[in-house]
């Protein structure tokens, strides 16, 4: 690790921050977000996630077993589907400070397979002031994860603290 220098490079002084994330004031009830990027899930993602989280159901890592249960091959672990969809929403919804308070009414609607491409969209369903933290509010979103055929694969409600811009 390098020590702090007295000579700060010129470009660092000149640089303007290209901001990411959002604040409480950026949301309004009913607002819809079609989130960025999308993500094609690979066999590697699924094998890594399932083994790192010790999720020992052979449907997710034994293709012969999955086929014997009516699937075309290994099934993507539903917890990975949830996390991938949530990940796609973070920059627009929760990045910029404020704890993840919880998720409710999560439904896994259909199986996801390696090679499927997921996108995410969210709707603001609730906004409240925080009783305990006047510098932030609580925003609740309904998020849907959709595959390449337009089918709903997962949906849930998520609530986060959001820091206020004018605290």
């Amino acid at each position: 690790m390098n020590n702090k220098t007295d000579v700060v490079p010129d470009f660092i002084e000149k640089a303007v921050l290209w901001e990411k994330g959002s604040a409480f004031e950026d949301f309004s009830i009913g607002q819809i977000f079609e989130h960025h990027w999308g993500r094609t899930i690979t066999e590697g993602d699924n094998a890594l996630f399932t083994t790192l989280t010790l999720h020992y159901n052979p449907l997710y890592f034994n293709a012969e077993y999955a086929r014997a249960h009516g699937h075309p091959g290994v099934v993507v672990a539903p917890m990975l589907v949830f996390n991938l969809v949530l990940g796609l929403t973070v920059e627009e919804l929760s990045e910029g400070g404020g704890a993840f308070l919880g998720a409710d009414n999560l439904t896994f609607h259909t199986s996801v397979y390696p090679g499927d491409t997921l996108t995410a969209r969210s709707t603001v369903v609730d906004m409240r002031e925080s009783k305990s933290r006047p510098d932030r509010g609580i925003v609740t979103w309904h998020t849907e994860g959709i595959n390449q055929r337009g089918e709903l694969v997962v949906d849930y409600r998520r609530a986060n603290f959001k820091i206020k811009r004018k605290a």
Partner: protein
Amino acid sequence: MKSSLTGNDNYLENFHPGAIHRHARGKTVTELENVQITNMVMNTAQSHFNEDIMTRDPRKHRLVYGGVTASIAIGLAAEDTAENALAELSMDKIRFPASVFHGDTIYAFTEVLAVEDSPDRPDAGIVTFRHWGVNQNQIVVFEGERRVLIKRGSHWQDK
């Protein structure tokens, strides 16, 4: 498909409402789980992967992303409560009562809330679980409910 690939003590008939189980293994959360999974799922919140910025935060260190905490807690419960599952149906009341940091160890506990017939699968039934993830100091770091379609041993065992 041989039923010997999965356990014999975790079919539908083995779950009884009110039973509380302690799962056998714990897992210490490190960068391997937190940073890798956070980045793999493209969760862009840098409080999970920028140690430098967190040195200027009251919490001092990178936080484990709640999705990772939940996935490990449910994973620790999975051999017992998901190995003979046909499908994960739903989750509810997912909460993170305390922060998790690299080096913390998570253990999992499960209560069986309900056991029901499946409306469309005579060979399986639906179990509702409440799961807890607890750290090395017995502080609850995750809780949530989960409904799962689980094979009936009467239809699937020794086949």
